[in-house]
Each structure stands twice: as C-alpha cells, then as structure tokens.
C-alpha cells in the first residue's frame, strides 16, 4: 500500500485547499454489470483509498488488488451534494473577495470526471454548481451590506486559454491577448474587457455569451470535451466612505476618508487532463492535445510553486 499527500504541510500554505470529489458511476458504467467501486473515503473525509486490480481481465483467476492512499484537505464521496461542496470548500474563498482578497477556485480532472458539473452544475437549487452559488452569494452580501456610505462595483471578465493563446470570450474581436505585468498592479491580461454587472442574471448572461465562444474539439474520447481552459473573473470593488466627525464637518478643507477594497475571484474550468495517447490523437488533434497537456503542466508548476513555499531564486552567489 502506498501513500501520498496532496496537501501542504500543516501550518504552511494554509491558503490553499486541495479537495477531491469522487464521481458516482454513470448509467453506462452500471449497465455492463461489471462495475466495481474501487474507491473508499475514510471516515474523516481526508483520505481516499483506491484499489487497483493487478490481475486485469484474466477470467476465472481471483483478482489481486493493490491499494493506494491519498490524503487531501477534504475528500467528497459519491453522495456529496453541490451545496455541501460549495459551502465547505468554495464559500470561504468567495467571501474573502468581498474583503479585498484575491481567490481562485479551479477544477481539474479528466474529461467526463465532472468538472463542469461541479463548477457550473444544472439549473435548480440542488444541482447548481460553484459558479452560480458564488455569484448569488456575492450579490446577496452586497445587497445586505450596501448603504449610502458603502458602495459596490462588480465587474466581470471571461477568458479562454486555448492552444497557448488567450482570447476574450466576451469580446472575441480582441483576438490574441497577452499576459503582462504592471509595476503597480501586478499580473494582468492586456486588453481583456471588463463588464459591469448589477445582478446574478447579468452575470449568467455573460457566462452564456462566453460559453458559446469556447472552443470545443471532438476527440474520440468525448465529443463535448472542453479543449480549452476557461477563467471567469469577478472583480468586487467596495468603496466605504468614513464620515467626518461632527466637529470637522463644518471645515470645508476636510474631506471624508474613503476606504477602497478590491477583490478578485477567479473561477477556473480547466481542460481535460487526459494524455495524448489516451485520446488516440493524431495529426492536428495531436498538436492540440499536446498544447493542452503542456499548458496543464505549466499550470501544475505554478500551483506547485505556490504551495511549495515560494519560488526562491534570490541568493545569487
């Protein structure tokens, strides 16, 4: 039995959470009558054990299993519902954006493993995914928190990374966008459009518009498998005006102080993580799959660099 830990060590990098969601079997998998559940989630919901059949399909021979244990911040079993996942895992990050922090929620996994279901879900209270719940949570908080002295501005962007190229899904005419670094603002996508939104429905409209633009490729594995990474960005800007004390209000030289908080929420739907050989890809599709895998690799490196303390390059001697 081998063990692995996907979580950062306790006390370090605690602003990262890595969770796993086990997808229930789909009807096709159950139809064959050979379905075997090879996963087991421990009672503490932190460890998943995967049993691997080492003997393959050797007919009558008794199966020999090898077990692998993996530890995460949380493991959701097949029965977990959308609400629990949002509230346990994403909600904290979403709320932090209203406090001026930047947060990211991303889904990673093979095509067909349920990334889009987890992120977007379906209509209806029970089946809604992280994105609609996040949007509604943000606007609900704004509604309850807004006042004459506290104002909010919410903007949204939607971009796609496809074959190492970034495009603006809400303004495709802008074409091939570039990642840049501003001396003051840090990393940003140059020329990415930002749309002011006033309600969840306006956000959904933008998501629908952008989704239509997303590049999808038909692979032998999955017609509808997403071949691109998509990032929906919600920027929450909060401006709170601190009134002057009564004795200073008569002084025309004094102006009320304004506290501005800007938080950004990145909701990421990554392309399928299947390997080139898994898709049996050839020719131009091979090129496409290669790019998907290499860009996933780069993203993986970025994540590793962030969780594994920080990139250390400074001591030059």
């Amino acid at each position, binding site marked *: 039995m081998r063990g692995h830990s996907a979580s950062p060590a306790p006390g370090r990098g605690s602003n990262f959470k890595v969770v796993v969601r086990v997808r229930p079997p789909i009807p096709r998998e159950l139809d064959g009558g050979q379905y075997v559940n090879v996963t087991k989630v421990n009672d503490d919901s932190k460890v998943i054990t995967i049993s691997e059949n080492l003997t393959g*399909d050797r007919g009558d021979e008794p199966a020999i299993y090898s077990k692998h244990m993996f530890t995460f911040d949380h493991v959701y079993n097949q029965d977990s519902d959308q609400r629990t996942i949002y509230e346990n895992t994403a909600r904290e990050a979403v709320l932090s954006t209203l406090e001026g922090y930047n947060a990211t929620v991303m889904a990673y996994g093979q095509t067909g493993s349920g990334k889009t279901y987890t992120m977007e879900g379906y209509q209806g209270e029970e089946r809604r995914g992280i994105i609609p719940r996040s949007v509604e949570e943000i606007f609900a908080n704004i509604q309850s928190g807004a006042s004459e002295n506290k104002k909010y501005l919410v903007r949204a962007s939607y971009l796609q990374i496809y074959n190492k190229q970034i495009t603006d899904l809400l303004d495709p005419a802008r074409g091939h966008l570039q990642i*840049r670094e*501003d*001396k003051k*603002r840090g990393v940003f996508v140059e020329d990415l459009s930002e749309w002011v939104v006033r309600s969840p429905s306006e956000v959904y409209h933008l998501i629908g518009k952008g989704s239509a633009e997303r590049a999808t490729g038909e692979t*032998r594995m999955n017609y509808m498998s997403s071949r691109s990474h998509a990032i929906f960005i919600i920027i929450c800007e909060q401006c709170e005006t601190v009134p002057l004390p009564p004795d200073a209000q008569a002084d025309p030289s004094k102006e009320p102080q304004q506290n501005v908080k800007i938080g950004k929420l990145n909701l990421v739907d990554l392309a399928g993580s299947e390997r080139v*050989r898994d898709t049996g890809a050839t020719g131009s599709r091979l090129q496409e799959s290669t790019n998907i895998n290499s860009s996933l690799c780069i993203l993986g490196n970025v994540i590793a660099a962030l969780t594994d303390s920080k990139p250390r390059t*400074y001591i030059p001697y």
Partner: protein
Amino acid sequence: MEEPKEYMRLRGVFDTFQRVQSLVLTADPPETPYTSKYQARELLGQMVAETQALTLTMGTGAGAEGEGEGTPDTTVLKDFVAYLHHLIGVLAYETEETSAAVTHLSQSLAWLGPRLQVDTAALGHPPADADADAESEADSLPVALVSEALSPGVSLALAQLLVRSLNQMGVVWTNRQDPTRGMHYLKAAEALYRTHVMPHIEALKSGALGVRTVPPCGTEPVPTDTDTGSEGADTPAGSDCQDGWWLPPICPQWIESLHTYTVFFLAQVYSALGEASLAAEYCRTTLDRQSAQGGVDVSEWVSNAVDLVAYYEGQGQLGSVRHLLSQARAMLDSPSASLDTDAEDHKELIAKLNVAEGNLYSGVIAASRNTLTRWEDACHEARAAGEAVPVRPRAFVSMDVDVAPDPAETREGTDADADADTDADTADVALPPMDTDTSDGAEDEMPLLSRSQAYELFNKAYAHYQQALDVFKLEGFVTGHVAVLFRVCDAYLALSSFEPQASMQARLHRRRELLLSRVLPQLNPQHYLVLMREMHFRVAHAQMDLFDIKQERVQSLCEAIEMAANPEALIAQLPQGEREAYSKALKVGLMSLQSLRLFHKTYEQEVRRRLQRDDASYSHGLPEGVDDVIELLDGPEDVAGYLQGLFDLGRVQFRLPVIDSDRRIVFLEDAVQCFARVVKYGGQVTTQAMAQQRNLCKEMLRLLTAKVHQLKRIRMQSRSLSLVAAGTEEEGGTVAQDGDVDVSGSEPVTNADSVADSPETDTSAHGDSGLDAQD
C-alpha cells in the same frame, strides 16, 4: 486453384482488421465514450482466438504435414498474435484498464522478444534495490545482437513492433507511478533501435531490404498504435506466405519517430526518477533528433532549446550551451522556417534567445574568473605549505594581448565545429568549443581570458541583453525585465575581476547598484515582494563590493582612527581628498546596511501578511512564544536567506569606519546580535556554506564581545578624563567644544531617506528580531 481453407480463415481474420480500424477511428458520444473501442477490443480478442486455433491446425493438421511448433507458418502466425495482443494492450490502456494493458502487452513482448533474442521477461522484474543506480541497471539490458535466423527486413519489421510495445509498457508503468520499471522497458526499446534498426535504416530507405515502405503520411509523426497491416497488404494467398507477410508497410521516418518517442519518454522517466542530468541528456537527444528529422515547429523547438540551455548553463557546460544556441539560430534562420516575425510571441522568443546568448558570453567570463580564483587559491595554499606553486592555467591564444586577435588565425583549434558556427566574431575565439556529445556531463574548465577578451565578450553579452530589454520592457514585463537586469549585473561582476584598476572596478559595481536601485522604487511590494527581496540583496552586495574598494583606500586611516585618542581631531587635520575618501567609504557602507535591512524587511512583511491572514485581530509584534522572526520564516530556504543577510549585516557593521565611539559601540553591538542569531538559528540550514558561516560567526562573537568591552572601558576612561578636564577648565572659565560631527559616523548620505537608522542597542528587547508595527 482453390485457396486452402486455412488461408480463407486467415482472410476472414484480415477482413475483421478492417472493422477494427474503422471502430478505433469512430468518435463515440460523450455518454458512451469507449463503446467503439470496447467493440474493437472484442474483435481483436476473437482474432487472437481464431489465429491461435489456426496455429494449432497448421502446426499439427493434415494441411501442414511435417510442420510442427516453430515452423515458419506457425511462427509467423504467432508473430501476428503477438501484434494483436499489442493492439489490445494499447486499447486497454486507452480505455483506462491499465492492468489489462499490461497483461496483453506482456504477451506481445513474451513472443516478440525471444524472436529477436531479447529477454523481455527480465524487464518486468526490476531489481529489488529500487535505489540502485538507474544508469548502471540500464547498461545490462537483455538485448542481444540481431538474430541471424531472421532476414534483416523481418527483423526490422518485428523490431519496430517490439519497440512500440516496449514504448507503450514504458508509458504504462511510468503512469502507474513506477518509473523505474518504465525506464527498463524504454531502455530496452532504445537498445533495440541501436541493434536491430539503426544498422538497416539506410538499406530500408534505399529499398535494399525488400520490405514494403511508404512515405510519411501528412504531418502524422508516427503511425497510431491501432494501425493495422490490412490495408493494402497482401493476404497469405496473394503472397508466398513468407515471414512478415502480414506486417504493415514500413515508413523509415516513422521508425525514426518511434525512436524519438523512446528518448522523449526516457527524458520524462528520468525526470520522474530525479536523474536531472540523464533527463537533460535525453531532452537534448530529442531536440537533436527533431532537428535532424525536420517538420518540427521551429518556435516550439527553439523555446525548448532555450529552456534546456538554462540547465546546461547552471551545470557550467558551456560547450553544450553554445551547441544548442547555435542550432537554435540555425533553425530560426532556416529558409523553411515559416515564422510570423511580427507576432508578440516570436519577439519574446527571440528576446529569450538573446538573453541565453548573453548568458553564454557572460558565463564564459565568470567561468574564466573562477578558473583564475581557483588557481590563486591553490597558489596561496601552496605558498602557505611551502610547496611549489601550481602552473598557471592555460590561456587563450590571445592571452595578454590587448588587440583582438585575427579570427582567421586563432579559430582553428579552438572551435571543433567551426563549420557549424556562422558567427565569425573575434570574441568567438574566447568561447568554449561546441559540445555535441550529449553524454558528457562534466563542467567545462575555462581557460583564462585577457582583459580585452573579457571586455569583448562583455560587450557582446551586453548587446544581446539590450536587445532582450527592448522587448522585455519594465512596463509589461516586470519579472522578465528585472531578470535581464540581474544578468547584466552578473556580467558586470564577472568583468570586474578582470579590471586591475580599483576605480574602474568601483564603476562597474556602481553600475550594478544603479541598474537595480533605479527600478526598485517603481515596484509595488504588494505584487513583487520576492522579486524586490532579491533586488535589495543584489544592491546590498554591489554596495558591499564598493565598500570594500573604498574602505581599502582608507584602510590605514581607519587603523589610525582606531588607535587615536581623539579621532575627530585626526579627521579634521586630514587633507580634503582623504577626508572625502573616508566620507565616501562610510557613506557606501551605511547604504549597504540600509539595503540589507530592506532585504530583511521583505521577509518580515511576508510574515506579517501571513499572521494577518491567519488571525484578523493581529496588529503587530511577535506572537506569544516566538522569540525571533526567524522562527516564523517559511522553511529552510527563507531561513538561509535571512541568515545570509544577518551575516552580511554583522560583517559590514563590524568594518564600518565610524569615528564616534558611542556609535561605533552601537554598530558593534548590533553586529554581535547578528552573529549571535546566525549561530542560534544556523543549525536549521544544513548547507556547508552555512556551517562555515556559523563557525565564522562563533569566532567573530568571541572577538567582538571582547572588543565591545574594550571600547566601553576606553570610553569610560575617556569620559572620566573629560569630566576631570572640564572641571579643571570650568575653574578656568572655558568649556570644551565638540569636534567635527560631520565625520562622526552620522554623516548623511546623498539620499537622506536611505540612510540607516542607528540600530537598537538592546536587540533582546525587540530590535531586529521582531516585527515592527510601522513597517
């Protein structure tokens, strides 16, 4: 003539192949993504059963009288069955049944291996010692020479099938988290290519082997594993039923591509095994093969080459660096490379290449400096031991000649691959020969450069860096821009060791400092804290190098000050020039202190952010139970960096030529605190360098503590004397005036904001080890 019934059955088997091909290419709906592959697998299973039955019939039946196990017919059928198992294995892997994949691929290997005298059975059982040296294991792979029983054509055809199975097994086991086992299969594939394919590849291309060949099809790099030999292949009845009649036609380019895949997979496997040098070696082989085979995406290739160059540069293998960069330029200049030179991506790629080329020139200067330093150290040790001084390292042809040599005269003998090098600049004479051998992992020993050669190389490096900076502008490419500035700084530093004049050395260090200190105030620490940390550190070290030079000029004066009863009076009597020199030394020393403190501040800011994030009520200071901010740093690397800064802080403060005895004591006490913290926390860092620094700090602690006591005693005595004198003079009706305060150690530097505050005398109360609320 009526076709034998066995051949008719075989024809049926081949007809099934067509259906398999069609099923494999079918795109299934998302709800049932593997349906067609499952069907293909099933058909292939039926083909296996039918062919095996035929094998028995042909081996023992009336139609094959006299034939038994191992006759050509049954052997060929078994070859075919092995191939079918290979295809089932590939499909099983594609449908995520890796165990089944291993089973079928093993069956393929179990037959094909012995056919080619390859003991594939041994590959599935890696040595018990998982930590054994991967390279030595790979050297004893069970691959024999070409079997003489097979014709070269069949041997080649079977070998390519075996390579495909071995490659697939390598991929399967590596993805099953067993890269050692995967490595064994891939190394066998590599060996098989060398023994069974490489010797015949030219004959194959010329048609001398009598094997059907096909040109490469479109852009497809390798045949898919589910390609079958049915299309266009003769059925047994149509052929004379010789060995290999069922084999698909061979494309020489595909065979080469298969081997390229083998080495590419090996690069990944060795990377997974932590064998960096082998991984790099196979990456380089992959690039070489891609370059030779053509049809490669030039931009992608150059990008990979530039990334690999960074590895070789770090290993000091500058010959390999030069080889790869030369190849990259050749690829870009190739008329067949269709590149959009106006595209942003292309411009950035060229900028990266320029940086790499600048690094090569700068690296040669630095390597030469290291050679000189090593020789000087060896001389020093030899003299100390009373031994003969070692021979000076060899120099380039133009050593000690200030005029650039004629490249035509010196080129021969210094460049082993001169024809491949189109850059005929005179500085090339000082470059290492291009290293085209991928297996040589040794660091290149650089000959000594002359000053003029060093400057010439520097200018070339600088020109490349400038071209890179034209693209990597600060606005838009902060990290990239600063990274190039770091490289320019490194080049200045390397060049400075070839500069005999102290004033010129000082200029070079000053440029290092200015390059970065001009950018620093423009950056937002909210986003670039780690980058700024390195910038502060580098600025501090440039200033410390300047301080060394300037302090050396006033060394004798500093010693006199140390001994003088009235140093202020001594300074006041100095000529203007010496006073200025002294003043400059002090100023740059104080500036380096300030930079080191800013360097430390970046760590403290990071810690504070973390504390605030974890506890919203946190305001400032160290949490309860924490004695020092070092205890809150994020891992040994951070601790090492912070302690390095403390070591430097202590060293500078110890050497700071301050006149005022009170301030001198304050600086020395702070130096004591710095060294004490290095001693206390240095054990967390297990590097040899830190162990040495820690020992040095222990020694310094002992010396400095005594010195501080001595200075305090002298100060007490001096004050007692002053009081007595004041009392005497008061009686006479006069009061003594202070000396010249401008040179007392609190003299302002040009940028008043950057002057370091006096350190706290009592660091135990908080001092530098805490988190300041004002930071």
